[in-house]
């Protein structure tokens, strides 16, 4: 646990550790996401449709960037 961003997953009732969860690394994507939301809101408040569209495009790009898969974080799928 001292070599990376890992944490325990535990059983729900007794909180016994039963798996290791690999957490994401530091990233700037959430900051850019909030900036794009700010741009959208600015466009909406001041009636600047073009700015709202720019913000929406930026929102899409930041969401895709943030959630683009990283193999090291792969969680088991069922």
């Amino acid at each position, binding site marked *: 646990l001292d070599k990376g961003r890992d944490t325990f997953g535990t059983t729900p009732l007794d909180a016994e*550790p039963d*798996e290791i*969860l690999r957490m994401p690394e530091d990233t700037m994507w959430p900051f850019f996401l909030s900036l794009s939301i700010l741009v959208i809101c600015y466009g909406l408040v001041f009636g600047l449709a073009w700015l709202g569209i720019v913000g929406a495009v930026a929102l899409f790009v930041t969401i895709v960037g943030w959630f683009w898969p990283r193999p090291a974080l792969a969680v*088991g*799928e*069922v």
Partner: protein
Amino acid sequence: MATASNAYVLPINPAERRNPGWWAMVLIIATEAMLFAYLLFAYFYLGSMANTPWPPSGPPELKLVVPNTIVLLVSSGTMWWAESGIRAGSQLRLRIGMLLTLLLGIAFLVVQGIEYSKKDFAMQSNAYGSLFFTITGFHGAHVFVGLLFNVVVELRAWLGHFTAERHLAVTNAAMYWHFVDIVWLVVFTSLYLVPHVM
């Protein structure tokens, strides 16, 4: 306390449980379903309280909306085909199925835009107009988001990210698309068919 002699090894990100991402999509769908439930409740409530005919200008035309509904139903079929394809390990079925779904979804939005342009009332005309455009507009927005989702998953599919064992994003995209389709069936029945029979 675990010592070197009795230390045990824990699995890293094991695969035995439903992925949290799957649960996230289920909860998103539940939330959005409630949104449409409230909107349709408002539609039927205001309709029941109206002193004038509801809809005010008579039942809406079905000429465009019936084929459009069929287009959306077929798109659910192609999405199912794509998802079942990757479950069987077929990259080609996944890619082609999702592409067809994308094209059919775009066609649905285009036809809905054409239908909007032919309406003789606007959102601010009356309560019916407000509800009609809000409900169908919200649904159209959900279709648009589903198409964006589809585009990203399509891109990942062409990059070879998915396998028969790992394709959660495809499952989530399919779940969302089927939800959008089911909502449209309810909206279509409520806003288009019911006025014709009542």
